[in-house]
């Protein structure tokens, strides 16, 4: 307690109040303990979340995770179709890629708190911000794939002899422009399919951050499943082989990586199996398996119906997985268990926080395990 006295001639032995010795008076032996709190697996402030979950809307951002993947994967398939003389695959790939890019950009801008300030993203390029890197990736990719898709449309209109379209002599120039921008887009495309994994892993959200080793691969594989499926569904049957192969490979790798995340993360991966995100992930796995089987069937029997059904199933699988990971991340951020338990274990191992107070103070340790009787 403070020791100062007020005398006629002023203050004596002045001690600031911040030196107040709370708990110093009383007959108790120091460090006697006597703490007992109800046994619990972990402690928290009234069971409240430690983190703020993302403010992103699922439709916009989980939707973009899917669309960005489809855009990148379809651009790769379009380039491959172009180089191997698969005209219908090139056309489908370019149009799907451009459409997905446009929709994805719209979703990203719509999700901003101040959409009118979208251009502020272009003030800087920050390698520490995957969102900034992604903005610039999209800024490079969008015009290229847009030009390729425009060339496709102009080419189709010209071939059909639509009045007002370019004269046939310009066809070669349009094709060359389409090919060069399509190929240039395919150089950016792989990064577009995987950076979104870093985008969400680079947060404090326990599930996303802890899965940072796998998420770029998982999202890349999911992009191949989604793009492969959509391109296979909209390409001529005898040209769709590579799209089917990419889609099947993508969905198989995606499910293997998902199992790996479950195995490595342990309890932090729980939200992927529970509640709404759990249902989404189960549906994604089912759709993925069904799609892979249908497309494999089409590879053997050459059926447009199988291509469409299998392709759409793969795309649905990819979409459901993105929403599943998005919602599971939200759930892992809101429940303090996934923040506190792993961090407490880490801190206890390192002794960084726990080392500062002696063990006779059961308050810390006893609570998490079995209730500790006072000494």
């Amino acid at each position, binding site marked *: 307690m403070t020791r100062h006295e007020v005398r006629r001639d002023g203050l004596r032995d002045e001690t600031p*109040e911040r030196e107040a010795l709370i708990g110093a008076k009383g007959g108790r032996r120091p460090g006697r303990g006597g703490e007992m709190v109800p046994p619990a697996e972990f402690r928290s402030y*009234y069971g409240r979340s430690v983190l*703020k979950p993302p403010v992103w809307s699922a439709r916009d951002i989980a939707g973009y995770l899917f669309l960005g993947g489809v855009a990148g994967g379809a651009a790769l398939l379009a380039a491959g179709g172009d180089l*191997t003389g698969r005209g219908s695959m090139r056309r489908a790939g370019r149009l799907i890629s451009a459409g997905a890019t446009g929709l994805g950009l719209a979703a990203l801008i719509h999700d901003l*708190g101040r959409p009118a300030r979208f251009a502020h993203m272009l003030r800087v390029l920050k390698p520490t911000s995957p969102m900034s890197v992604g903005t610039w990736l999209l800024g490079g990719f969008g015009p290229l794939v847009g030009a390729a898709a425009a060339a496709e449309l102009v080419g189709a209109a010209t071939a059909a002899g639509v009045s007002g379209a370019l004269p046939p002599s310009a066809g070669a120039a349009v094709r060359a422009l389409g090919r060069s921008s399509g190929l240039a887009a395919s150089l950016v495309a792989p990064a577009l399919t995987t950076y979104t994994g870093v985008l969400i892993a680079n947060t404090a959200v326990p599930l996303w951050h802890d899965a940072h080793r796998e998420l770029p691969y998982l*999202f890349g594989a999911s992009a191949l499943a989604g793009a492969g499926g959509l391109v296979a569904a909209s390409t001529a049957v005898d040209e769709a082989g*590579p799209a089917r192969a990419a889609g099947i490979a993508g969905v198989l790798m995606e499910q293997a990586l998902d199992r790996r995340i479950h195995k490595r993360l342990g309890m932090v991966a729980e939200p992927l199996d529970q509640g709404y995100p759990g249902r989404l992930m189960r549906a994604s796995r089912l759709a993925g398996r069904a799609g892979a089987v249908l497309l494999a069937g089409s590879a053997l029997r050459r059926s447009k119906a199988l291509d469409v059904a299998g392709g759409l199933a793969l795309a649905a699988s990819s979409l459901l997985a993105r929403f599943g990971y998005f919602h599971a991340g939200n759930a892992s951020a809101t429940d303090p268990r996934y923040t506190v338990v792993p961090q407490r274990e880490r801190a206890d191992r390192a002794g960084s*926080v726990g080392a500062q*107070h002696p063990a006779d103070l059961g308050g810390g340790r006893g609570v998490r395990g079995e209730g500790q009787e006072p000494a």
Partner: protein
Amino acid sequence: MSDGLLEQPTGRQRMGFFTDTSICIGCKACEVACKEWNQVPDDGLSLLGMSYDNTGMLGADTWRHVAFIEQDRPLGRQNNSVTVMPTGPSGTASTAAVVAAGLGDKHGSMLGTQTGRVHPGPQPHATPDGHVSPGGRTELRWLMASDVCKHCTHAACLDVCPTGSLIRTEFGTVVVQEDICNGCGYCVPACPYGVIDRRERDGRVWKCTLCYDRMTDGQEPACAKACPTDSIQFGPLDELRERAARRVEQLHGVGMPEARLYGADPDDGVGGTGAFFLLLDEPEVYGFPPDPVVTTRDLPRMWRHAALAAAGVAATVLAAFVTGARR
């Protein structure tokens, strides 16, 4: 990765807060002073059922938040509740049950921005479930702590901001430039403490500025100015750290070995915080993460994985054209 953005301002000292929770009396003057000075909008009135805490948690409209924790254990050597308190149990367990029911699945994660409501039902008969003194009464201590933005040395919010709206000031603090922020929301899940948040009607993110405007004028922040017990101490960070270390020793000496500093270690996962705390229990009890790590610490590794994965995607498509050509 984050190191490139962390040059400390030259010429001026890094300023910060030392919040000594052992002398916090829970008056909430800091909350009020902060709201008044910074003209932070109201965030609803509600009764949360968490001791005297009806604020919830930090958020876009709550830049100081006083936590209240009731525990069935003594404070230091005091024989407090046994002889002085009129009645026995503090009801910790039953209170927790009521609060848990009211918070629901969202765990109150939006409190502080949209203050949630808790509707306590009839409480079961509270029984002393904690330590009971020989006199038949339970022990009680009441912890209070004023939480605030930590102004991390390695600040995740600042690192991930794609517009450059979040900046490091000449005082070493982290501030949002509201004329730049476009409300992308990336900083919100990036913060390991759940501090920064988006204001719904406004669309931008808001948080404590450590009263940048007052500091530029040589004034201490409003909360520190208003704190009647000096629980919130403002000053150059190195001085505060020294003072805090002495204070911990002082408390250890009077029978409170549980006193410990939180955020004062420059080697922790966020490089130490500009606002650090003296706590009387483990950090998670106050709603703090026990061992926060700035997410961008792992970012170089993530980029390497993304590059490898991109190469894998390209290779898979190539392989698909090689194998798929035959079908």
